[in-house]
């Protein structure tokens, strides 16, 4: 589904990613962990197409399309989703209207008709319930005055509505209490199937207790330096990142 080959990227002339190789297949959950400043958020931004980052080398293929050529909205319509670490507030635009616009863009791209108002409402209620958001949330403005937990639930609600092929969760666990974390994780688990894939980016292991990864990667200084199964995450939880840094700092 996703192939990243030798990806190098920089911001304002400062190299951040220094040769990332990563392959994600349908039906799998990958986790990327790493110390602060290792390039985790840069990687998610570059995959989603954020303009400020300049790709200097390498390729990203998504279902046979070289997405480095595409605008962020075109990547989204192809089935890529980024759940933001810091979702933006949009006063004056209701969650219902916003998600309707987004879903219709994606459907249009797929050559599908817009959903009827009734079907849409039904779908929204079902997905809102999945992440523990009440119906009145649909009328409220997008993220305006939302708590940290509500914002993250809204990201997973949008994910559920857009039904992407690949979802990247960027530090979705930050700022969440344990109940919100569990709700968000249960939402993600309910959406997992053999056709889609998840890339979970996190500093801490605790989210991975609930969203169990098939593959765990450790990012350090712009490169993936360790790859393993879920036990690797437990080792990091237990021993911290010092051993990773010690082992790989020669290469840096």
């Amino acid at each position: 589904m996703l192939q990243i080959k030798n990806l190098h990227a920089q911001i304002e002339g400062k190299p951040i990613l220094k040769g990332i190789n990563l392959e994600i297949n349908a039906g799998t959950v990958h986790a990327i962990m790493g110390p602060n400043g290792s390039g985790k958020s840069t990687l998610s931004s570059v995959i989603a197409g954020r303009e400020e980052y300049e790709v200097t080398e390498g390729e990203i293929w998504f279902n046979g399309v070289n997405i480095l050529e595409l605008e962020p909205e075109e990547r989204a319509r192809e089935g890529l989703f980024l759940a933001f670490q810091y979702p933006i507030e949009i006063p004056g635009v209701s969650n219902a209207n916003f998600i309707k616009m987004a879903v219709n863009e994606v459907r249009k791209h797929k050559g599908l008709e817009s959903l009827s108002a009734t079907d849409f409402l039904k779908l929204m209620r079902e997905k809102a319930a999945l992440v523990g958001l009440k119906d009145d949330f649909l009328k409220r403005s997008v993220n305006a005055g939302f708590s940290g937990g509500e914002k993250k639930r809204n990201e997973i609600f949008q994910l559920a509505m857009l039904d992407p092929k690949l979802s990247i969760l960027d530090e979705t666990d930050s700022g969440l209490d344990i109940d919100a974390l569990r709700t968000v994780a249960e939402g993600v688990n309910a959406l997992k199937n053999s056709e889609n894939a998840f890339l979970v980016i996190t500093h801490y292991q605790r989210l991975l207790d609930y969203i169990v990864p098939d593959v765990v990667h450790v990012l350090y200084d712009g490169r993936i330096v360790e790859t393993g199964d879920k036990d690797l995450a437990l080792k990091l939880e237990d021993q911290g990142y010092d051993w990773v840094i010690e082992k790989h700092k020669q290469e840096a």
Partner: protein
Amino acid sequence: MFQEQLPALFEKWGKPELAQIAKNGSFPNRKVESWKYTPVQNIQISESEKSTLNLPFEGILLEPNTQAEGIQIGFEAVDFPRKDIFDDFANESFQRVLTVTISRKFKSELPLIWIHQPTSVSTDCIKIIVEDGATANFVELYQGNQQLALTYSNILVESKAIFNHYQFQFDGFKAGMPQVLSKIYAQQHAQSTYQHTIITFDGSWIRNELNVTHLGEYLFTGMNGLYVADGNRLVDNHTNLEHAKPNGESSEFYKGIAMDRGQAVFNGRIHVFQDAQKTNAFQNNQNLLLSNEAQINAKPQLEIFADDVKCSHGATVGKLRQDEIFYLQSRGLSKETATQLLTNAFGAEVIEKIENETLRSYCLEAWNNKMGV
């Protein structure tokens, strides 16, 4: 030009005394600091019929024969400070001014409505007294193309009274907005609340002056505004708050958008008197500049003479944030749609502060229509 046309027009309308003032007086020009960016010669006058009235929401229309529990209507002479020639026109016209006294017995949830429907150059004036402990919502609406409405309000908010004053300067009737010069003089007694909200996104030439003076302690003044200058529009907001007594609190939040060849002016003066200790004054003015030909002149003007006060102010002029546009793009919306939605949202933040649900929905719907959202 407007200034040269005016004497003949006043003659024609049977107002020789105003014609005389127009002939002999001088109009503000760009050498006058407070009119520097607001050229009077851009006003254009044409006559037209009074349009038919169609209220956009339920309310109590203020007229000489208004009857409502807790509302008393009368007529008084009112004097306004004379700072420019428009004040001379106004004072000359205001011998019998509609005077509305709102008592504690007024319990209606409905807003009081004052409609400006100028047919040429017209002067509207109102005096409002909100008695001890009374609460009311008051809305000014505007209608009529290519005319000039000079509107003057004299407002007294007595102790513990709450007065929410709204000016909706957009065409809720779909008949065109007049040009407006609005002047408000509000005074507040102890423990009162005066909340002013102004929403402007229509009308070719608009200037609003808001003056609030504190006469007592432990009171609150709120001033919220949204102004949009698109096309060739000019919108000017001058606010002046006189923190004359100790322990007063105020919050001012104005947001502006200029695009196309629009011009916007914001001048927010806050004057904290020497003995107005423990004053808490907050001012925030944010502007979006969306085209190279548009102009925004923002001027916070804090004059603080007391030493034990909390005053903060911030003024910004900028573009939309890249990370916000990216967020919307990442949900499949094009850059153009994202820009439109975020500009809409920028303005909606002011509208969302309107507490009255009817009025908030009315403004939000009009704003969304304006922005095509």
